[in-house]
């Protein structure tokens, strides 16, 4: 299952589906970094609203995506972690340290707009 990546100005938006396998996540990691390069994007929003489970592999991949994109000089925001998923992540001891998060897509875009404003 492929993750659609939408380009909106300087921001790329990747929307996760519920049933992503490890292979899908790895593919997305490469795809996102390549597209950040191709479009000279300044930020990536990863929308995980539909994700039913965030296990150790998924959260490690998200952290890696954010770090790779930071090395390209762009910013990553993870949006839409569901309350139950957040609870399970905490129980599992998973963190997304050093990665920006926001409530939903709208909040994520607002966060980036604010950030770009201050850096301009």
């Amino acid at each position, binding site marked *: 299952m492929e993750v659609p990546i939408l380009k909106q100005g300087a921001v790329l938006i990747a929307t996760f589906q519920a*049933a992503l396998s490890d292979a899908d996540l790895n593919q997305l990691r490469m795809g996102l970094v390549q597209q950040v390069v191709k479009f000279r994007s300044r930020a990536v929003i990863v929308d995980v609203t539909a994700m039913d489970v965030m296990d150790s592999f998924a959260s490690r991949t998200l952290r890696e995506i954010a770090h790779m994109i930071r090395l390209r000089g762009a910013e990553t925001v993870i949006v839409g972690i*569901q309350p139950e998923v957040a609870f399970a992540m905490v129980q599992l001891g998973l963190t997304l340290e050093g990665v920006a998060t926001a409530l939903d897509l709208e909040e994520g875009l607002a966060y980036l707009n604010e950030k770009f404003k201050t850096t301009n």
Partner: protein
Amino acid sequence: MSDGEIRVGINSDQDIVVARQKGRAMANELGFSPGDATLIATAISELARNIVSYARKGKITLKMVNGLNRQGIAVTASDEGPGIPDIRQALRDGFSTSGSLGLGLPGVRRLMDEFEIDSRPGQGTTVAVKKWKQ
């Protein structure tokens, strides 16, 4: 199918997704809250991942269980892989031998209500966990 047993063969990362979806479906059917269903699905995901990472293949069995005045779900992950030489060490946070996060087993233990592990080097590992409906 409410008291039937569901078995999912775990041979690839795709099967991890199948196993956790079946687990969530069973939890929903048994009347678990969405929050608990997510904890169960997450635990299944971690157990299935351990099978793929360490043993390559195995199976996950899902079963309804009846306790005293309560119902629950029993998840058993079994493989005939290399086994865990030091179980106590494997149950400590931060321990891993496959370059993963190493949070698998202690995390699963926190997600579920009951946790049992049986592992013999060279013969395989069986992890049996249960979650009771609140």
